[in-house]
């Protein structure tokens, strides 16, 4: 029998396999078969640990991949948001700049109304290229009716006067220029003097009598004398006042201009002197 089986083993393989499968199915079809259940149990037991491991590994890989994809997406979003923030910051900065400019121009117009004269707002487009003079270049000239000796102010106070006029630009001599001289008066004591610039960039108040009542902190305004600067424009305040001990006839007084000449952006050119009845003398200077 064994010899017969061995002899026909090749032929018997398929029928045996089919028969076994058929028997297994038959056993299960009739009722619950212990043989089939046991076989299934063995097969599942042999594969289930690896199956669990594979599923776990696949899940971990899928999770890592999803996290990687999320990370890439977050990175892209981050770049986009950074770009958006940059643009928004630029816009905010621009708006802030516009607001500041609007505020400055508004103050200039307020001053124009107070002075009661026609005025032209101009942008500062250049500053003096040497250390010997204190002048600025503005973007309004003869085409806007600007002429020499017109007063130039900011919302804070006096800036200077127009000294050169071109077609579309004009040069303004600041009150800190060493060749500048402005008739001023001490607002509190009404003492008259001359505000003159110096090479060092400070403003000296000249020709104040020795006995004149001048104190540190006193406000200085234009006196209106000389016909160039309208009366009452704030110039600055006294920061140092002294009486020379020997031989001098006048006090030595130094003033700090209200206008910040290092940060001038817009100025206003007063096209004619104000009416004589309008006085700034009793008013506080603008902040």
């Amino acid at each position, binding site marked *: 029998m064994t010899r017969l089986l061995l002899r026909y*083993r*090749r*032929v018997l*393989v*398929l029928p045996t*396999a*089919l028969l*076994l*499968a*058929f*028997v*297994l*199915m*038959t056993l*299960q*079809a009739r009722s619950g078969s212990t043989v*089939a259940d046991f*076989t*299934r149990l063995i*097969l*599942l037991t042999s*594969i289930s640990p*690896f*199956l669990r491991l*594979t*599923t776990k590994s*696949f899940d971990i890989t899928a999770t890592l991949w999803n996290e990687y994809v999320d990370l890439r997406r977050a990175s892209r979003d981050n770049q986009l948001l950074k770009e958006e923030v940059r643009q928004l910051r630029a816009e905010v900065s621009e708006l802030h700049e516009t607001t500041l400019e609007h505020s400055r121009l508004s103050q200039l117009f307020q001053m124009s109304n107070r002075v009661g004269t026609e005025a032209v707002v101009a942008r500062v487009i250049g500053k003096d290229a040497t250390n010997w003079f204190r002048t600025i270049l503005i973007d309004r000239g003869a085409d806007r009716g600007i002429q020499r000796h017109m007063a130039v102010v900011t919302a804070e106070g006096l800036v200077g006067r127009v000294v050169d006029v071109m077609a579309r630009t004009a040069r303004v001599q600041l009150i800190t220029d060493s060749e500048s001289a402005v008739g001023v008066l001490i607002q509190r004591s009404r003492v008259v003097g001359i505000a003159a610039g110096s090479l060092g960039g400070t403003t000296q108040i000249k020709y104040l009598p020795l006995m004149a009542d001048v104190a540190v902190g006193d406000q200085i305004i234009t006196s209106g004398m000389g016909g160039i600067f309208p009366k009452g424009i704030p110039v600055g305040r006294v920061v140092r006042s002294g009486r020379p001990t020997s031989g001098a006839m006048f006090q030595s007084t130094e003033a700090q201009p209200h206008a910040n000449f290092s940060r001038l952006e817009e100025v206003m050119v007063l096209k004619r002197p104000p009416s004589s009845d309008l006085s700034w003398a009793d008013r506080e200077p603008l902040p």
Partner: protein
Amino acid sequence: MIAFLLALFSTCLLQAAIVPRLAIGGIQPDLFLILLFGLSLSAGPELAAAAGFLIGLYQDSLSGAPLGLNAFTLSLIGFLVSRLSRQVKTTDFLGRFALLCLAGLLSGLITLLLLRFFHAPRPLASALLWTALPGALYTAMLGTGLLAILKPQTTRGLIR
């Protein structure tokens, strides 16, 4: 033999864990059939039948099918493919695709017939058209590609 068992284990794992995610319209490829097909191209009919029996048993254990259903089917398929591979040219892409598709269809038909006999019967024509045929095509496409990558030599070495 060890290589075959490793391939069988890997197929079990892939079929259970990965392949369901590749299902298109609920139809998934049959990696067990691809494994048997690759093996049958190089092995003798008897060995292919025995391998089909073992592969089928594992497939049955991993599915809700009655134990022996796929064992029966794959034994027969293994035997027939091995026999046919000696009669027809199976080295080119198209021939292999056609034979694998035929094996898939035959597998579906036998399974349906056995289910009709032993288990809950299913409508034969619609099951063949909407389940067996798409499954066979999907399996044939994937199997042909896989076998082209792995090369026939790889499958030939599985049982040695």
